[in-house]
């Protein structure tokens, strides 16, 4: 019995210490929730918030970064999404929440470098305190939130991957983000509303 109790105790101890962060990631926003507002610096130095998007019908908010190979693999597809959908009211807003002390390539200065190299046509904002990634519950890069504008502000309509094939853009069979925007535009719910994909973890401050 004593052995059993001590085992339970060990498990509880581990659940609270080592696995403490496990609980934290569950607390993010879900589809249907009101979008969390922010005020973050774009690579051009200007502060961007949800209020900066007055005429748009929504936006494609993408947690990404400079260094992650999955993010890099999707850069061209993210550029294409913006070029296609900004016109119809759904621009891309890229956001980097990584701690540059963990990954120096993901500093604000290097965001400008990467954006220039690739000619990003979209805004790329810096979540220096990581509070926006935490608030949304973003865990990986790239991690997409499609927002839809309603009378009282933005609401989350889709969370997940851009499409179903990170390895090969030519072999994609399901374009989740494009399908979500098509559904929203018709006043329907995206199907699926959430998807999963492999990605780099967001590099949290230590």
């Amino acid at each position, binding site marked *: 019995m004593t052995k059993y109790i001590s085992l339970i105790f060990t498990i509880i101890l581990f659940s609270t210490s080592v696995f403490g962060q496990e609980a934290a990631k569950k607390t993010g926003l879900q589809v249907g929730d009101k979008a969390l507002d922010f005020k973050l610096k774009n690579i051009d130095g200007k502060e961007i918030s949800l209020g900066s998007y007055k005429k748009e019908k929504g936006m494609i908010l993408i947690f990404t970064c400079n260094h992650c190979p999955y993010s890099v693999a999707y850069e061209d597809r993210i550029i294409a999404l913006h070029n296609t959908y900004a016109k119809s009211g759904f621009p891309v807003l890229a956001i980097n929440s990584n701690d540059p002390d963990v990954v120096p390539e993901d500093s604000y200065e290097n965001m400008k470098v990467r954006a220039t190299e690739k000619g990003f046509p979209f805004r790329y904002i810096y979540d220096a305190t990581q509070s926006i990634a935490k608030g949304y519950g973003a*865990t*990986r890069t790239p991690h997409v939130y499609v927002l839809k504008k309603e009378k009282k502000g933005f609401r989350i309509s889709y969370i997940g991957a851009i499409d179903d094939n990170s390895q090969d853009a030519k072999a994609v069979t399901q374009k989740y983000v494009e399908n979500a925007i098509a559904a929203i535009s018709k006043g329907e719910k995206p199907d699926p509303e959430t998807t*999963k994909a492999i990605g780099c973890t967001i590099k949290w401050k230590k």
Partner: protein
Amino acid sequence: MNLYSQSVTELTLNELDARVAAGKDTTYVVNFWATWCRPCIAELPYFEMANDSLKNQKVKILLVSVDFLSLKEEKLIPFVQKKGYRSELFILNEKNENEWINRISTDWSGAIPATLILNTEKKYRHFYEQDFHDFPSLYATFQTLISQ
């Protein structure tokens, strides 16, 4: 030239399930990693130490890379040969991430590193979307489960 010139086996989730089921009372520690994932590379030495320490127990450590299959020869093989990993090495051979991630665990967002610890006869399956920062925390987790 590395003496442990390691091979990397392609693995589907059906093959993984079959392997674990055949292991009966063996505990499988399945770590999902990739050559491009820094926290994964940082924690792999602890899994290697655990692999060495638990050699005489019914524990198998399987390191499953989620690197792009198309980069196996070019990136993964040279990487593991340089590192000289001693645990069993695999590369996942699955396509639709939105499907297979949920088969591992519905709690998994898809971020790596991630580790699954499971045992068919003892009927447990624990999933960790996290990295282990040191050997003691990893080893203590294993020991707690193995002694169940």
